[in-house]
């Protein structure tokens, strides 16, 4: 049986309070809640990797993945494939199609629709960083985040957690939301216009999909409504006849709307709490509407994602200053430090060292067992030459041996924390500690590794690993 076999969501830990925007811009108003904000070291690619790592925690499942689709409206690069970074970071087999579906917000729901019936295990990652002009609704209501799903045949290691019962799509060319390439923010038509277009389309798509699944709107256990058009999304459940208590919350008050990734994050949130044998319809509005209808299986309770969406939503750090947010998004051009700019990564060494750089694959000595980061041909303990095997440390936690806070390092958000990490089971590496404050860098603190865009120099992004404070999942060994 094929279906959904794994899922996970990633929500960055930074929060911007809407009241902070209003206060900074000298506007009154009752803006409530917070939005999630990608860190200055995160982008759609790195967040997609974080979500996909959680979805592919099982090595056996990684080895089965045959296709990778990355959907985002904010690609880190054009022309080159961003999904190959996922492919490299996850250490997937070479003979795997990795491709992007980028540009439109709808590419997220579209990628899910394409992957859902797949007989080849297919990883779909949805990721977005939503930016609006200062003071606008997109800035206020947007959010950043990612989600990853694997559709395909189940097995004992990764059984089907939700069957795909049916899907339907309505496509419509409508000038409702658009953005010229390179522009900082979307433009939207008058909201009431598209409400009239979208609501009937959404109801029609939902009815068609439910019909195909042999269900009725009234009998549905969970309806998830996603899409950047807020008025339409709020109006659809009633128009479709789905009882209000069956409609999943949109988390907008806490993390905002993550655009391309929003349907994924909301679906993951429902899967975190749905019981076995329940039906879930995911309805995504935009340029028409698309619907995916699932039924959870008995395997779901034992195979939910390791960190639930609710925990990621709750794990927000102290609120960001608005000026910091603007700086991170490149909307405030700040005076750089009087220091040499960081070097970009160079292409040949990056390619030669892809296993280490992207997947954190270290070496272990086959003579004495000593672990070495970065990998080396000569063992640091017994000096054996070329006696190594590969060992991935991406999922291995560690302890801070010593640390420092650097007030001078080139960073859009100083200070920078550096830690020397002693990994459980051996090996040591000095790296940056992110999503942290000084207490997290104390000697003895527990950390885990996270994939980040460590910087961009001369138009080249550098993707590499940092440490971050350990989640509960990384208890002392």
């Amino acid at each position, binding site marked *: 049986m094929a279906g959904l076999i794994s899922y996970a969501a990633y929500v960055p830990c930074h929060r911007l309070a809407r009241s902070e925007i209003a206060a900074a811009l000298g506007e009154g108003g009752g803006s409530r809640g917070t939005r999630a904000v990608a860190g200055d070291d995160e982008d759609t690619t790195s967040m997609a990797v974080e979500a996909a790592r959680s979805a592919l925690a099982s090595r056996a499942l990684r080895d089965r993945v045959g296709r990778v689709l990355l959907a985002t409206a904010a690609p880190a690069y054009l022309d080159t494939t961003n999904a190959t970074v996922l492919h490299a970071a996850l250490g997937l087999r070479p003979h795997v199609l990795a491709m992007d579906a980028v540009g439109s917000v709808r590419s997220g729901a579209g990628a899910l629709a394409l992957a859902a019936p797949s007989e080849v295990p297919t990883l779909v990652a949805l990721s977005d960083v939503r930016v609006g002009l200062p003071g606008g609704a997109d800035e206020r209501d947007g959010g950043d985040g990612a989600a990853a799903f694997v559709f395909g045949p189940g097995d004992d290691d990764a059984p089907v957690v939700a069957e795909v019962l049916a899907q339907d799509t309505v496509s419509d060319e409508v000038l409702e939301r658009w953005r010229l390439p390179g522009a900082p923010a979307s433009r939207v038509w008058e909201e009431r216009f598209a409400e009239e277009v979208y609501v009937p389309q959404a109801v029609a798509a939902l009815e068609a999909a439910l019909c195909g699944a042999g269900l009725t709107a009234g009998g549905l256990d969970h309806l998830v409504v996603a899409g950047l058009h807020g008025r339409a999304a709020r109006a659809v459940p009633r128009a479709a006849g789905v009882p209000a208590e069956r409609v999943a919350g949109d988390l907008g008050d806490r993390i905002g709307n993550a655009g391309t990734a929003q349907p994924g994050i909301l679906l993951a949130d429902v899967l975190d709490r749905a019981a076995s044998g329940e039906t879930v319809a995911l309805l995504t509005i935009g340029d028409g509407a698309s619907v995916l209808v699932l039924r959870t299986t008995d395997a779901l309770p034992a195979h939910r994602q390791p960190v639930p969406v609710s925990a990621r939503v709750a794990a927000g750090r102290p609120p960001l200053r608005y000026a910091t947010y603007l700086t991170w998004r490149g909307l405030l051009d700040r005076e750089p430090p*009087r*220091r*040499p700019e*960081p*070097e*970009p*990564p*160079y292409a*040949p*060494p*990056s390619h*030669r*060292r892809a296993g*280490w*750089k992207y997947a954190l694959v270290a070496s272990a000595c086959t003579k004495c067992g*000593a672990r*070495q*980061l*970065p990998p080396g041909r000569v063992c*640091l*303990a017994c000096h054996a030459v070329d006696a190594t095997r590969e060992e991935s440390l991406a999922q291995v936690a560690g302890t801070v*041996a*010593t*640390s*420092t*806070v*650097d*007030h*001078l*390092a080139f960073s859009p958000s100083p200070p*920078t924390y*550096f830690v*020397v990490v*002693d990994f459980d089971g*051996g*090996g*040591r*590496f*000095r*790296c*940056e500690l992110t999503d942290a404050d000084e207490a997290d860098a104390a*000697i003895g603190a527990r950390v885990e590794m996270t994939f980040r865009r*460590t*910087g961009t120099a001369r138009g080249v992004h*550098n993707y*590499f690993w940092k440490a971050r404070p350990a989640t509960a999942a990384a208890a002392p060994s």
Partner: protein
Amino acid sequence: MGSHGIRDRVAIVGMGCTPFGEHWSRSVDDLLVESTTAAVESAGTVLDDVDAFWLGTQASGVSGLALSRVLRLPNKPVTRLENMCATGSEALRNACYAVASGAYDVAMAVGVEKLKDSGYSGLAGTQVPGAGDDGRGEGTAPANFALLAPAYAQRYGVDRDELKQVLARIAWKNHVNGARNPRAQFRKEVPIERIVAAPPVAGMLGVFDCSGVSDGSAAAVVVRAEDAHRYTDRPLYVKALSLVAGPASGLARQDYDFTTFPEVVASAAEAYKQAGVTDPRSQVAMAEVHDCFTPTELVLMEDLGFSERGQAWKDIQAGVFDLDGALPVNPDGGLKAFGHPIGASGLRMMYEAWLQLRGEAPPERRISSLAEGRSLAMTHNLGGGPGECVSFVSLVGSEPHA
């Protein structure tokens, strides 16, 4: 296989050192002319009579032409070399070996660096194209050396506030010494309270815990020991030269605890063996050590054998390493107050040994330990950082066969 040293086989017979500082009006070439001219003058010779040259610079020139072009040297052998912040000492070491081998009668070691033309505060990078995946070049030098402080506090149970006072006292002492040195970059004493309250730079380090970023040059003339008195009646005999490059495993092995530089321990042991030193704290008259940041000097006092493990912070507070202490350390102000033009620093350290052992240091900073019959001076020069570094230790003396 074996390391034998060249104890008492060569001698330094002339030295020159420019003032260190922000030399906006002087070029690398100017600094080289000044240091080399002063060195040959003090040896009573001329540049044309020097047979071979070793030029140490991290990033202020490439190839032997960086020196020969400036001095218009007539087809002489000139080697340009680099070994991070130990570059100047490395130039001296190679010049000494060349003379000891018999290949040349007169050799010159010269070190130079111009840091201030870059417009940056801190060091200029010399990175090889990489993949951005090894943690190198991310943090700053102060952040790297700041890793020592919490580790030391943790291992020896020293309260953080107390350790901050200890580090401040190191900076205070070096500023006191630098204030008595007309060539130093910083010539003012700084009260401990001001050092402690300075803006943070990295970890426990404030602005005053960091060495000065400066321009400068220093040079030495080296001849065979038996020829030394033809140039000066007070030569410095080279007793030991020791350089090690570590396996760079401290950032990769969990058994390194960031309270020591194993490379310094190894290079010091080798130098003491070459010179026959058995109790450095009582035998050495003074030491110039690589105080790039205050925690470095703290740890070096133990690594060089001047203090017992875990005791240096107490010795520092007791004034053991002050100008009038039992073992004066950095009587010229050190990297802290004299400044740190990378390639020049190793030879600048030797310049202070040259002045002190010859009794030429100004009276206000003259060390008293010589009066006890001690005749040895040490220079210690380090490049890299905790976990991976190169370390150089030399011992020189005013007496042959002593």
